[in-house]
Structure formats: structure tokens, C-alpha cells
């Protein structure tokens, strides 16, 4: 078994008096695709935000590439550079063209020259069928296109790990397909990913490992096959029955 | 047009003395003579910012005129009238306004003036030891930064006579002009001569009167009382002023309050 790329150990997160994550343990190996499933409010987004250090955890540790990133001495910006995240709502920068959205981080954070960054961005756009949208502003794109750009933007920084938080939940069913297509491609490109998703059939298709979150607790973890056909925890069973 | 009806100070008054008895006058408040002036009222024109004291040149003049018209001291009421409201059109809150207002033909189109009660000259004040403290003539003030208060004829005098090379600084209030002199933001002030004496004596240490404008500079400038356009009271007041001039009372008042304002050197 290879060393894990990400290790989450006993992570707690409270908002006010409410514990949203209650001691989460999780490991993600290189090239592994992990799907987080669970009801609304179970803490999926919060967990992803903690991994990306957008939230400060209240207990536990997170290791990336073997180094603890929850140590107060760690440079958060450096850590974030190695992780890409795409949110539930797409959060493109509305005042920038698609190309500028994608090249901002490579140019300003990774200090890549403009020409090179744009070339790379155009390659990515072409690969994902958006070559003609480079100069468009986000509000001229359909929801599905916006979400694809958001994924490309995260990819452009060549992260070690991608976090995708319900990237299809704000989309019309017709647009969902194109976004799921891009995720499939990422998997083929051996990207390590954690996905929070409500699309059970998709999770089943794409996940190496599925984790079921319930009220901030990681109730069950297993292969997609095992979780969907033979859930062991009664709550997993209830949940799957209610959504399938 | 109403502007053509009267020509200011020189307007002939047909009023006989009989019409000038106090119960026949049309007044803002019946039975009382209401006199306007600005607040604060400066020395040496008024004393202690209290026009009703009878102290100070203009206060004394006002009471002397009132006396001639037959008013007792307690029948004179004072009201606060800002300089630039004195010439607002429409009903006035005073019978006449006394506020060191110089008579000019332009102004006389908007208000009526009484005959002059004081022939004023403008004077230059500078700080002792300053560049212009010892100027001998107006020409040498050409390059000075000069301060002046808005609404006074001093500004016109500067423009007409000194023709300075840079714009003068114009202040809302006398205090601002004086502070500018203290701060060395201006090198000289132009004010009327009595004020100049007061400034040098009481307000700016180490200041001196450089000199007064000569007769040709601001020839015949006189202060007049300000009336609502067309106010028939002007005639009666003019009679009173004539009488005060004739019997020497006006000269006495001037000597009492402005006595020192004589011997400043004239600047040519």
C-alpha cells in the first residue's frame, strides 16, 4: 500500500456550540477517488473546507504528503497551492474573462509567465471543449460551462489533490452530464480527488472509496461496490434507501 | 423699474419736519426705532459687542439720530442683521442698518442710503519689521500678499489703487484676516483707518499702520445708513444727520470714539 497523500486524523470542527465534524479519520492514497456521501448538513462541505484550510479545525491533525498542515507554523498559502477546490456554487471571478480566471493563480502564485500560463490554459480549455470561451466573461456562460471552467481553474495550478464539492448540484440535469464527463476525464488522468456528491449513481461509477458522513461522524467507509450493495451500518442503509 | 426710482444718498427728500415726528413715521415696530447691525459688533464702532450701550462711534451715531427723530433711548431696539442680508430684497427687520457700509452707486440700486455720516479712508497694516512695514508709497505694495475682508470697499480700493501683482486673499471675517496676518499668510492688511488703529493697538502685537490711502485713492468714500429701497424714513434721517453735522454733534462723537484716527501718513 502506497503512503497516503492525505491523512485526516480525529478532526473536530465546531460552529458556536454545534459540532459539525466529530472526530473524522480519513486517508486518501495517490490516484484514489474518494466520494463523500451523506444527508444535507452532515458536514461534507465543512470537511473539504478544513482540508483546504479555509476553516481552522478545533482538534485533530491533517497531513498532506506526510507533512502536518494543521501545524500553526505551516504556510497556509503554500498548502493551498497543492490543493485545488471547486465549490458547490461556482465562484468564478465575474470581473475576469475565462482565460484570466484560469491564469490568475499560475501567474500570481506560481509565477508562471503570462504567455506560458495562457498557453496551458488554452490547452486545458480545448481539452474540455471550451476553446471558444477563453475571452468570455463568466456571466455569458451556461451553468455547466461555468462549472467546467471552475474545475479547469483549479486544475491549472497542477494540484496534487482536487476537492470537488457537489459540483453538479446547482445545475440542470441536462448540464450535469457535461460536468460529470470532465470528472471522469480527471480520473482517467489519475488525479487524486475527494468528491462530495448527491449523485449516487455517479459516486458508484467513479469512486474507489465511498465514505458515508452522518451528523459529522464518518459512519462507514468502503469500496463503492460494498457500500451500495451491502451497507453495514444501519444509518447508511437508511440513507441509501431514502435517496435511491 | 424700481431701480430707477431713487438714486441713493442724494435723493431729495420732500418730507417736512412735521412729517418726521415719531408717531408719523412708518416703522417696523410701531413706536420703536429698530436699528440693525451685525454680530459681533467690532470696536471702535461698538464697544463690547453691545450696540445698545451707546458706546462706540456707530452706536453713538445711531442714538444721536434717534434722538433727533424724537426717540428716547429705550425706544431704540437693536436687531442682528448679517452684512449680506442687509441688502436682501423684501421686507426688512430693521428701520435702518448701521454697519460701516460704504455708499456706492451700484449698491444704491438695491437699497437706499442716508447721507454719509463718516468720511472713511482705507489704511494699510503690516507687521513691524516685515517687508512692507516701512513702505512709503502704494506702488511699493504692488508685490505684497494682501489680506482683506469680503464685503468691504477695501478690496475695490486695492484693485483700483495698488493694482497688486497677485490676487489678494479675501476673508469672511475680520478675525480671519487678522489671523492670516499673524500667521504670515498675508504681508499686509487693508482695512478702514479706525479699524486699523484698533487692530494695531489691541489685536496684533508688533503691527503698525503703514499709512492711509491718500485722498485721490478713495476719494469721497462715506459710510451711510442702509434703508429698505423706497423707505420714506430716509428723508427724516437725512434731516437729522444734517442737523447733527450743523450743530457739531457728529464731529464730537467722531472725536470721542475715533479721535486717534487722524495722523497716519498718507501713501501716494
Amino acid at each position, binding site marked *: 500500500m502506497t503512503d497516503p497523500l492525505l*491523512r485526516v*486524523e*480525529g478532526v*473536530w470542527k*465546531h460552529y458556536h456550540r454545534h*459540532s459539525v465534524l*466529530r*472526530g473524522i*479519520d480519513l*486517508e486518501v492514497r495517490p490516484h484514489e477517488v474518494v466520494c463523500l456521501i451523506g444527508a444535507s448538513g452532515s458536514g461534507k462541505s465543512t470537511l473539504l473546507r478544513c482540508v483546504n484550510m479555509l476553516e481552522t479545525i*478545533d*482538534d*485533530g*491533525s491533517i497531513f498532506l504528503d506526510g507533512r502536518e498542515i*494543521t*501545524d*500553526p*507554523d505551516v504556510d497556509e498559502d503554500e498548502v493551498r497551492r497543492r490543493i485545488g477546490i471547486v465549490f458547490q456554487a461556482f465562484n468564478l471571478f465575474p470581473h475576469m474573462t475565462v482565460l484570466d480566471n484560469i491564469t490568475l493563480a499560475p501567474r500570481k502564485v506560481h509565477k508562471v509567465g503570462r504567455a506560458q500560463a495562457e498557453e496551458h490554459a488554452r490547452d486545458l480549455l480545448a481539452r474540455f471543449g471550451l476553446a471558444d470561451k477563453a475571452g468570455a466573461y463568466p456571466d455569458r456562460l451556461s451553468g455547466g460551462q461555468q462549472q467546467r471552467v471552475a474545475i479547469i481553474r483549479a486544475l491549472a495550478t497542477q494540484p496534487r489533490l482536487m476537492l470537488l464539492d457537489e459540483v453538479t448540484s446547482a445545475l440542470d440535469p441536462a448540464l450535469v452530464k457535461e460536468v460529470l464527463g470532465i470528472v471522469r476525464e480527471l480520473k482517467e488522468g489519475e488525479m487524486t480527488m475527494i468528491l462530495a456528491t448527491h449523485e449516487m449513481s455517479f459516486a458508484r461509477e467513479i469512486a474507489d472509496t465511498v465514505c458515508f458522513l452522518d*451528523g459529522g*461522524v*464518518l*459512519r*462507514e*467507509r468502503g469500496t463503492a461496490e460494498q457500500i451500495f450493495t451491502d451497507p*453495514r*451500518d444501519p444509518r447508511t442503509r437508511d440513507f441509501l434507501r431514502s435517496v435511491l | 423699474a424700481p431701480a430707477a426710482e431713487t438714486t441713493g444718498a442724494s435723493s431729495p427728500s420732500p418730507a417736512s419736519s412735521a412729517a418726521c415726528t415719531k408717531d408719523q413715521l412708518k416703522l417696523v415696530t410701531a413706536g420703536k426705532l429698530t436699528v440693525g447691525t451685525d*454680530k*459681533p459688533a*467690532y470696536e471702535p464702532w461698538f464697544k463690547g*459687542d453691545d450696540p445698545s450701550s451707546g458706546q462706540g462711534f456707530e452706536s453713538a451715531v445711531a442714538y444721536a439720530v434717534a434722538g433727533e427723530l424724537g426717540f428716547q433711548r429705550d425706544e431704540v431696539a437693536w436687531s*442682528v*442683521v*448679517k452684512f*449680506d*442680508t442687509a441688502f*436682501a*430684497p*423684501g*421686507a426688512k427687520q430693521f428701520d435702518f442698518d448701521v454697519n460701516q457700509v460704504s455708499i456706492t452707486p451700484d449698491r444704491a440700486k438695491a437699497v437706499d442710503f442716508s447721507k454719509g455720516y463718516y468720511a472713511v479712508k482705507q489704511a494699510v497694516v503690516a507687521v513691524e519689521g516685515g517687508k512692507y512695514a516701512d513702505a512709503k508709497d502704494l506702488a511699493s505694495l504692488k508685490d505684497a500678499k494682501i489680506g482683506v475682508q469680503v464685503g468691504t470697499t477695501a478690496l475695490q480700493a486695492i484693485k483700483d489703487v495698488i493694482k497688486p501683482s497677485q490676487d489678494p486673499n479675501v476673508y469672511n*471675517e*475680520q*478675525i480671519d484676516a*487678522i*489671523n492670516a496676518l*499673524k500667521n504670515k499668510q498675508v504681508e499686509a492688511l487693508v482695512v478702514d483707518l479706525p479699524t486699523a488703529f484698533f487692530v494695531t493697538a489691541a*489685536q496684533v502685537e508688533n503691527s503698525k499702520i503703514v499709512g492711509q490711502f491718500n485722498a485721490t485713492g478713495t476719494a469721497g468714500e462715506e459710510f451711510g445708513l442702509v434703508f429698505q429701497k423706497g423707505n420714506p424714513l430716509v428723508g427724516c434721517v437725512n434731516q437729522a444727520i444734517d442737523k447733527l453735522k450743523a450743530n457739531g454733534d457728529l464731529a464730537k462723537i467722531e472725536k470721542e470714539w475715533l479721535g486717534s484716527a487722524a495722523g497716519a501718513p498718507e501713501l501716494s
Partner: protein
Amino acid sequence: MKDLDPATRDNERTGAWVKSEQQVRREATRRKRALRSGSLATASTVVFLVLILWGVTASPGWPRVQETFFNPEAFVRALPDVLDGFLLNIKIFLIAEPLILLVGLLVAMVRSLKSPIFFPLRALAIAYVDIFRGVPTILVIYLVGFGLPALELQGVPTDLATLGIIALTLSYGAYVAEVFRAGIESVHPSQRSAARSLGLTHGQSMRYVVLPQAVRRVVPPLLNDFVSLQKDTALVATIGPLEALRQAQIHASGTFNYTPYLVAALLFILLTIPMARFTDYLAIRSQRRRGQ
């Protein structure tokens, strides 16, 4: 890491949380670090302020400035009169403000009528806003204060404070109309559709749906305008009434000392700070609502 039996984990995790030693250490580190940089920042700010203060007080002109601007005796002497004048400012403010809101709201509503038949009304509203936003308030006060009574019309007030209130209303009404208009336009059109689709008329939609939301959104800029208004009540001095600034001016001119202006400044600050804090509070509240 081995996967635990689900049941065991359940017991382990859903129990009450006990802070781990590691977390305790981590928080201590953070606190220490925050304290260090906090003290540094405080120290540097204090040094900066002290330097400025020292620079000012050590200047050659300082004794004179202190005497002219910060004279305690003049302060005390001017206070009663300036305070007295300040009551007039407050009175003018309190009367003008509701009138301004009314004028502003009416004009904004006229401007937001989209139908072409309202074009002339709308043109009138636009002309009003353009003119009165363009002319310095002090000029409006001059024109109303001296011009209106001069017309000698029946029923036109001659009281100076009333004239000042009219002038301020005209001048600020134009500003406030713009603020309201922005608010009305910021309410998403779908809200109007929703209201109309329920059968509400244009007027009812405005009254029950659009305006209540618009007004809430424009409270901060409105309060900003209120602050300006509080200060601009001082301009009414131009036409004569003895309000705070004029009283200060009288004292200053009388004593040749600027300290009375300081008195007026302090009074104005005392009035506006609570308003500023209130604006802040509203802004923060609305931000919370948005769920940051």
C-alpha cells in the same frame, strides 16, 4: 491506519469532545504568536501617534496655536452659546429629515415609473434632481432664504429657520431621491414579477414588496446623508439664524480666538458618532444575515 469497527467508532466519536493535548499546545502557540504581533502593532501605532503629537507640540508655533485653537477659557465661555445654537441645528435637522425622506421617496418613485405616459413627470423629476444636486447647498439656502420672502407672496413663511428647512429639503431631497432610486432598482425584478403574479397592482407591489426591501438596503447610504445633513444645518447660518457654527463664529470674532469652533466641532462629532456606529451595526448585521 486500520478501519475501526463501525460500532466502536460510533461510541468513540459521538461522545463529548475532550480537547486533545496537541490541540491545547497548538492553541497556546497561536495565542502566544497573536500576543507578540499584537503588542508589536500596538507599540508601533503608539510610537507613531506620539511622534506626530511631539512633532506638533514641539513646533515653534505651537504655543500660539494652542492659545488660538485650544484655549480652555475660551472653550468654557463659548460653550453655553454654542450649545444653545446647537439646539437650533438639532431642531432644523429633526424637522428637515422627515420632509427630505418624503420628497426623496416621491421623486424616486416618479423616476422609477417606466411607462412612456409618465415621461413629462419623469422629466420634471430628473430636472429637479439635476439642478438641486448640482447647486451647492449654500447657494440654495441663499436663493430660498433671500428670494422666497422677497416675492412677498401670501402664505410664504418668513421665519429664517423655516426657510432654511425648505432650502435643505430641496437640496437634500435630490440626493435622497437618488439613494432611494438606487435602492428600488437593486430589488431584483423577479420580486416585482412575483408580486404582480399574485395579482397585486403596480402600486401595491411597490408599497408592500419593493419599497420595504429597497428602504432596508439604502439605510446605510441614507444614514450617511443624514450625517451630512446634520453638518449642513450649519449652512443655514448664512441667512441669519444663530445656530452653533454662527454662535462659534460670533464668539471667535469677538475674542479673536478660534477655540469656539472647536466647541462646535465637538458637538457635531458627538452627534454623528452614534449615527456612524449605528450605520456600522446595520452593515454588520446585514452581512451576518448573508451568512458569512
